[in-house]
């Protein structure tokens, strides 16, 4: 602005086409600068809390911290080692299978609940909505402790069930622990996803239902032809968030071993737990940083693949 004003002072005589053009360009540039100024606070914070730490993690991942000899630059050796590390792939494989099983169950459940709430045939929907969502507000540490007590065979619900029925069920053996964690995660996040779906359903214009009713559609047809198609986009978002969430499982396997013995939870049970143990038990921060970056790349790749595929399907239909 100021620049343009000064320009007027210098060339007051004739407003040639040349100066007019110049003035217009200057105006555009200053507008751009104002825009930059507006996003600067965000940009600064974003750089400070996202970009810089990532760069720092990438930098760290090129070093090896040693008890003897201190930090040593080792180039990409951490990455090479990571790709050959059976513990790392064990943990990746575990969360992968976990995601494949748990996410569909949770989302189908959430969708069913959202449809039920939206059906307007239930009483006390508000209470239900809140109570189903409530677990999401419980910190994971607390919920893990709670479920640990509940599922534990020593003092918990399962202990009583076993006593009463004479059974020998144990939710925390090496082959069942992952299922138990699945139950905990599903409990915690079903309500959150349900709320997303419910909000989308609420936004469906009521006229569509009226039209459907006039056409003689029954409730199932309404669900199939109107509600489910409406949920499609949000479903993809929910899937992506769920994948990210399950790939990062950490609290449950961290806390459970101190509650139940022989649960089969190793230090490399999930990638995040492995990174944590590497950094804080093994003081291998460089290796842990490499792991975190590779894991982020894997998660981004998987989430992106889902997004691209999912959205293409949406547009196809």
């Amino acid at each position: 602005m100021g620049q343009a004003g000064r320009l007027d002072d210098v060339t007051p005589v004739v407003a040639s086409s040349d100066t007019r053009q110049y003035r217009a360009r200057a105006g555009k540039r200053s507008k751009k600068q104002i825009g930059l100024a507006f996003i600067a606070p965000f940009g600064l914070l974003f750089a400070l809390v996202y970009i810089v730490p990532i760069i720092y993690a990438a930098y760290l991942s090129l070093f090896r911290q040693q008890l003897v000899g201190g930090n040593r630059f080792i180039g990409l050796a951490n990455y090479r080692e990571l790709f050959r590390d059976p513990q790392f792939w064990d943990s990746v494989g575990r969360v992968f299978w976990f995601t494949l099983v748990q996410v569909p169950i949770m989302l189908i459940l959430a969708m069913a609940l959202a449809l039920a709430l939206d059906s307007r045939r239930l009483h006390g929907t508000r209470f239900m909505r809140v109570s189903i969502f409530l677990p999401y507000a419980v910190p994971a540490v607390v919920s893990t402790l709670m479920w640990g007590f509940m599922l534990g065979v020593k003092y918990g619900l399962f202990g009583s069930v076993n006593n009463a029925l004479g059974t020998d069920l144990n939710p925390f053996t090496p082959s069942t622990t992952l299922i138990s964690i699945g139950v905990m995660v599903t409990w915690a996040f079903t309500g959150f996803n349900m709320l997303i779906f419910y909000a989308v359903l609420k936004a469906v214009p009521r006229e569509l239902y009226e039209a459907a009713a006039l056409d003689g559609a029954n409730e199932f047809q309404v669900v199939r032809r109107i509600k489910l198609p409406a949920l499609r986009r949000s479903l993809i978002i929910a899937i992506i968030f769920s994948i990210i969430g399950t790939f990062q499982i950490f609290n449950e396997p961290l806390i459970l071993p101190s509650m139940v013995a022989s649960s089969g939870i190793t230090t490399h049970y999930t990638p995040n737990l492995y990174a944590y143990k590497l950094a804080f038990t093994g003081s291998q921060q460089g290796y842990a940083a490499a792991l975190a970056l590779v894991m982020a790349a894997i998660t981004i790749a998987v989430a992106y693949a889902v997004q691209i595929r999912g959205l293409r399907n949406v547009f196809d239909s």
Partner: protein
Amino acid sequence: MRLHKETRLLSALLGPILVLAACVGCSGGSADGGGGDQQANLTVWSWDGTVAKAVPGFEAENPNIKVKVVNAGSSTDEYTALDNAIQAGSGVPDLAMFEYFALPYFAIPGKLDDLGGFGAESLQKDYVAAAWNDVTVNGKVYGLPSDYGPSAMFYNEATLKKAGVNKPPATWDEYYQDAKKVRALGGNYYIAQDTGDPFFLLSLIWQAGGRPFKVSGNTVHIDFTDPGTTKAVEFWQKMLDEGLVNTKVTAWSDDWNRTLNDGTLASQTMGGWLTSTLPERAPHAAGRFKVALMPQWAQGDEVGSENGGSSFGIPAAAQHKAAAYKFLKYFTHDAGLTPRVAAGAFVPDTSVLESKDAQSKANTYFGGQKVGAVLAEASKSVATGWQYPPFFEWARVTYGDLVSKFYTTGKGSLAQILEEWKQRMTKYGNDQGFKVD
């Protein structure tokens, strides 16, 4: 919308990296400070509750030193906190507690002060030989022993009698025979429990003469095939294979308390410190438990080993080192021992072990047995020459990973696990700059 979505996606993805980067972002730097006799406020990190009992007496003797005992977590938690404080260069305590196996981890990279400068070497004769061995790393003293865990066998006399065993097994052969008799009682009766406790297995190896870790400077040699190790491992493998050990009940669990209380667990071979814990764990078994030396590998021997025990050292970055040493010596060697022992501490100081009080005091929980005399004998018979690799803190966590599958599924063998453990340690140790083979 698009930007917003991606930002959220990004933030969800990058959470762990941020946490990691934030925590390792600190660089070294140390504050060195002299001690002298001027005013000093000491911070002591201890999860041993008896240390605080020595403070009033010490402060009365040294009015210019104030001592604050803080529980900064037990074991691994404390070591992690200390490592972080040292890296950050602030918040480092003047004294910190270390299990014996953890001392080399801090001593070798120079994170602890050599106590030789304070004249600690002259105290050697006042401690049990093996305990002094525990605080000596590469020929230098890095801590003073503060509590001790000579292996001993705590046995339920009533259960053994019920099984037809009238005296505690003196050898491991007898132990094996007795185990079968206890098992013959059926139900949940077992002579022992084990779910893969590395310290128990190592105490067997230690006693059998195995020395799987040989440490000299930065060189670590690991070998789980020497005759002593093999003897101990094969014996315990046999016990497990024949189903003579309860592998369902883990020590310190609620179930463990129950089996100790109802007498189905006939014995527990553990550190002497169990003396003060057992009455809390098994109040209903009062009068039934007795203590004996751990069974021997050969008739007539008297060789012991350790299971646990800890020491205190002065971090190199501590502020008030002279005052810290003064307090350290006070509660591990001098007058501070009395209130600590009264509060239940078991210490490797010969002055305490040989005192008339410790030798002749009848323990009512143990049916009036003179427990102190047995544990003093166990302490003095602990074989020397045992070493832990400097990365044992990491190694024991890894052992848990390896062993859990064997104890829950029965697939594999202890010898295989130890071999795998060795490979993991070798790789880790070499990565950490040691020479491990």
